């Protein structure tokens, strides 16, 4: 048998912490992920679809709904190094019965389990209604706002796989296996945790859903 260890690790370098979740089974692993409803009417649960994974859904009409799933909140959750870590996340997002819906989908690393993105340590990928393409998205610890850099991947409703790498001096984001952006300003400096996030605004009807069917993260 080939040791699982040898598939991705070396014997001459002790590996850092790593998590892998394929979002299979009847429930999200609540000893890993903590679901938090931040505003409005929201839900999170496993999808009963082929390749469906875990879904965050907003259904409130006339106001914003948003929710976040973060890693081990309440425990030692901020275990990923802002100066040397990588995440891979497979994500898609869509609205139902409401073309006017405003929605956002985000994933990556974040310092806190809240809806504050512009002053917290954060590195991820962003889909926002109003943008054309997905964007790399970072914030430092200084409260000086965010850095948002456009990728070449259109904001459609298909699955896309994102790989974000923090190496201490830059944040490199790949999408669907292709290098997209390199950010060197407003980078996070404090330890962070994995997060999955969705918000939606449905003026009169419908819903919006962001799905995740793979998340992997490790320290370098």
């Amino acid at each position, binding site marked *: 048998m080939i040791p699982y260890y040898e598939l991705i690790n*070396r014997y001459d370098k002790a590996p850092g912490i790593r998590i892998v979740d394929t979002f299979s089974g009847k429930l999200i692993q609540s000893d890993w992920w903590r679901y938090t409803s931040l505003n409005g009417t929201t839900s999170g649960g496993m999808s009963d679809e082929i390749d469906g994974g875990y879904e965050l859904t907003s259904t409130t009409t006339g106001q914003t709904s948003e929710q976040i799933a973060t890693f081990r909140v309440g425990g030692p959750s901020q275990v990923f190094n802002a100066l040397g870590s990588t995440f891979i996340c497979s994500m898609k997002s869509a609205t139902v019965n409401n073309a006017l819906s405003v929605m956002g989908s985000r994933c990556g690393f974040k310092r806190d389990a809240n809806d504050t993105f512009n002053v917290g340590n954060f590195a991820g990928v962003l889909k926002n209604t109003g943008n054309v393409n997905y964007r790399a998205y970072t914030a430092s610890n200084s409260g000086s706002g965010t850095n948002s850099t456009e990728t070449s991947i259109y904001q459609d409703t298909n699955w896309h796989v994102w790989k974000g790498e923090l190496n201490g001096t830059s944040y490199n984001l790949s999408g669907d296996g292709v290098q997209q952006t390199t950010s060197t300003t407003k980078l996070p400096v404090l330890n962070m945790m994995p997060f999955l996030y969705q918000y939606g605004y449905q003026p009169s009807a419908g819903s919006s859903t962001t799905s995740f069917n793979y998340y992997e993260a490790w320290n370098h």
Partner: protein
Amino acid sequence: LESLTYATGTINDRETATADSIYDLLNPTPSAPMKARFVDGFCGDTQDGFVWGTGTYSSSMTGTITMADEVDGGIKFLTGADNYASVWMTFQGEQLNGAESQPTQQPFSPTGSVLISVLKYTTDSALSVFSSAGGGLFGGTNGGRGDQGGAAGNGGVAHQMRGNQTYFNLTTNNAGAYGSTLNTGVEKDTNWHCHKIECKTASAEYTLDGVLVGSRTDNLTPHHLAPQYGVFKYTVAGQCGMQLRYCEAYNT
């Protein structure tokens, strides 16, 4: 590389691993979207409660699913001595005895998925005509119930040991119609084996210990699927048992 455990080639140099993520190992084409995958090595003091639920034919029936305290023992299924005793495990919500149950997540495709199971049967293989044990992929409105997996509204594909058959068997079933007998040519026994089922567009294939031993094209289900394992016992003396130590399912 299709599955984690059965990688046999040299993935990378042992001292200088070249892949830095599980994702890269499992997806030779990085631009391809991730597909559903599930792996369980059945270690620990109980089955993973975030994934598996269990059930029996009725609340009055006896049967157990416990972790085996043995080297390479995995998880152990054992019916009670009651007539019609059965116990099963699937992606269902909770322990349900005699109740309808649908797996809360059926993420695997009926036309493009694989289930790998390493298991052994611990019962006398000649227990009775209708006694059986095995595992497979099932789906539908009541597909989480082991004794209803092939009934109307449900369907699936499974490898099994049946009391009235000499060989390991592959069954397909859909909406109450069964393809129940397939002569694989491999006599059933109580040794550990690697059972692999692949659902394709127009067939279901059964590979045993790395050798293709049969395929079916009848009674293929359109339902999307979830893994399920179970043991069932008819109206004779004795118990029906099985041990499972590896399960991997993925969409192709």
